[in-house]
């Protein structure tokens, strides 16, 4: 392949813009609203309307100088380049960036998943020459189960322990809303109780058209009132003093990491729920194949294995080692 027009720090050379830059930049293209990808303090931000709404909710109206919303599939032409955003299926508003310049097609996936999710626009496959992909779960040990089965395990546990609260550790943006939505899909229509950190973003999701059913703040409910109830809280609160207010809580965490039992054990999780907002190993391989990319760059995650796999397939592949993107076991996506 000719010299790509994208640098290895994700600078889009023809327009001098950066994708998900970890430091403030004059021009930034933001794939989705998670803190490690969307930071405040940029000059001009290009993102989907939902991502912009999320950024403004989290960081304030003036977290960037200007915002340019680009709806999915609309093409922006700029300095001889064509840029468009396409659903990544990771969280609400999450996007892959498709760029065309000088006859070359490059796709930067951001974080993505391919399983159906009522809280995120469904992943769209894009063919390209250079695929820049994440590899959060880029090891063959990660084969995510059907999330509906995980929800069934959760509901079985709720039924088995009627005097205990179930507190589910979830990242406040994306995972919380997805778990709530999966519970509704699984037939659970009782109120779900929220830690304070969840309330604003759940309200935003509802405003943006994602129904979540009855939600109540956990704060004012007396201990006994939460017996047999489901509470959603950030992972940090689950293991913290915060959950002492709950009646004999079952600690659950919803994350792709939870498939490794030793890992669940070492973080004291009693009910690990393998619910991930990233592609697993099989979907990573599927995506690499279906995009028909000849060159693959891996931004972050378990990059060794994916790079090795791609090279085995005869593709040019290299890791970018972008350490600014969280991917440790402590970070629950």
């Amino acid at each position, binding site marked *: 392949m000719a010299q790509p027009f994208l640098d290895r720090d994700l600078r889009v050379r023809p327009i001098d813009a950066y994708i998900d830059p970890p430091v403030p930049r004059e021009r930034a293209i933001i794939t989705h609203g998670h803190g490690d990808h969307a930071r405040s303090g940029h000059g001009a931000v290009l993102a989907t309307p939902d991502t912009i709404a999320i950024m403004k909710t989290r960081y304030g109206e003036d977290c960037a100088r200007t915002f340019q919303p680009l709806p999915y599939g609309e093409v922006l032409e700029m300095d001889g380049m064509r840029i468009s955003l396409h659903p990544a299926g990771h969280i609400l508003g999450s996007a892959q960036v498709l760029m065309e310049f000088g006859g070359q097609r490059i796709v930067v996936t951001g974080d993505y998943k391919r399983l159906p999710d009522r809280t995120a626009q469904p992943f769209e496959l894009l063919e390209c020459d250079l695929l820049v992909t994440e590899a959060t779960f880029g090891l063959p040990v990660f*084969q995510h189960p059907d999330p509906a089965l995980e929800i069934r395990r959760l509901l079985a546990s709720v039924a088995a322990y009627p005097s205990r609260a179930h507190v589910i550790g979830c990242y406040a943006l994306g995972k919380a809303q997805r778990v709530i939505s999966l519970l509704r899909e699984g037939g659970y229509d009782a109120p779900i109780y929220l830690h304070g950190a969840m309330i604003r973003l759940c309200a935003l999701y509802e405003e943006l058209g994602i129904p979540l059913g009855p939600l109540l703040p956990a704060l004012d409910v007396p201990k006994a009132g939460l017996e047999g109830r489901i509470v959603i809280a950030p992972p940090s609160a689950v293991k913290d003093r915060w959950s002492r207010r709950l009646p004999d809580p079952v600690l659950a965490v919803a994350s792709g990491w939870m498939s490794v039992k*030793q890992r669940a054990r070492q973080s004291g999780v009693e009910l690990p729920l393998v619910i991930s907002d990233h592609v697993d190993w099989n979907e990573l391989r599927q995506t690499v194949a279906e995009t028909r990319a000849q060159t693959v760059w891996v931004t972050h995650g378990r990059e060794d294995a994916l790079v090795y796999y791609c090279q085995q397939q005869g593709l040019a592949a290299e890791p970018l080692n972008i350490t600014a993107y969280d991917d440790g076991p402590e970070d629950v996506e």
Partner: protein
Amino acid sequence: MKAFAQLLEILALTPSRNRKIEALSRYFATTPDPDRGYALAILTGAMSFKNVKPALLKETVLAEVDPHLFALSYDYVGDLGETIALIWPHHGGTEELPSLAELVELFTITPKPKLPGLIGSLLTRAEINERWALVKMTTGALRIGLSARLAKTALADMSGRDLQAIEEVWHGISMPYSELFDWLEGRSDRPDIDHAARFHPMMLSNPIDEARDLPALSPADYAAEWKWDGIRVQLIASGGRVSLFSRTGDDIANAFPDVVDRVFGDAVLDGELLVGRDFVPATFNDLQQRLNRKTASAKHIAELPAFIRAYDMLFDGAEDIRALPWTERRARLEAFLSREKQHVIDISPVIDWSDAEMLAAIRRRGADEEGHEGVMLKLRSSPYVPGRPKGLWYKWKRDPNVVDTVLMYAQRGHGKRSSFYSDYTFGVWKGNEIVPVGKAYFGFTDAELKELDRWIRNNTIASFGPVREVRKELVFEVAFDSAQTSNRHKSGVALRFPRINRIRWDKPAGEAATIDEMLAFIPAS
């Protein structure tokens, strides 16, 4: 299999001891024989298959998965069984897995060449939790934080029988334990076991609390002995047959023919296995060369002859004397040793002491000059009680030696520590270079582990497989019980029981110890 897989998952993930016991007793009460008996064997570590070993499982998986990807995955997950369960690429089949009893039968009768095919098809048929349970039961390493004791506690809980009574019969019965369940559920009498020929669970000591316990102890009530630096054994001699068991009940007689072939009389003794000539103990390092071997070579026997330093007696002839006070058992032991001329057994002497201060001085001198691990204090009126009863026996270990070392290499841990760099090799200065003197896996908190892990990732200068070499900049204060010469270590020094005492983030590596300072810890002999 489904129920057993569920049980294993609860045991692995429930932090509460009571809830584990609840889950176990529910399982034992609702699962039929012989399945529950096999489950009990797996949970207590009594199950092993001659032909189904971790290597065979690995081979089965490597036929389906790229070896390099497997290695990366294992390095990440840190537990072989779990790696295999998670990485198995084929899922499907609606047929339920066989029952535990059927699986045990299959693993036992299937000829070796057909085992990979059998295991592969079982892994494919299994649901993810069953796959994990299946691998765990075949590799024998459960690593779910369950002790055999807890499983027996659940049996006591389920049946209302006394835990000690269950411990008593335990080593005389075997899987699938139907006679045990018959007795527990009141269908038959307690199983009859040949008391003299079976391993009897040992009585263990508690570490002494110097501030709280020590001032309250008087020589009138407590006898003192050295804490020997060997391994605890139980010797059973009955009608010309002699067995030798380790503390966990493993039969180690085959590795020590020089002991078992030269014992006279009938008795069950408790003592320390040591090596050395004329009852002069050599170092633990020397003993170690004879441990973990199935047999002993003539050379080893000649160079490192083994003997037993006895300190208690459980059976005198066929008579169970465990309920007698320590003083009487001691008198019986002395009488036995003077009655029967023994070539490989002597007695652990009782130390005279008058007060805590004097005992402290004795303990320090014993440690410094003779390499003793410390002293034991035994209540003179104590019966021999299996387990770790409170207030009867105390161990008062020597104060650890402490030395500042430099972290050299780190490796990922296993089990609970999987995926963190938690195994550390450290060294001391020898001229301008640092030479390794030991490895340690513990002595730090989980929070410190995370910090260390991060430091190691940021300061790696080279990788060799799973091992990272780091910048020689971080100082560990390492505590250890004793130092010995060693020709296995480049530095010529081996540390006994090293652990990280403190992480000295503040201390420059240049101020770490030198090899000469280390050599000064080795007692002159």
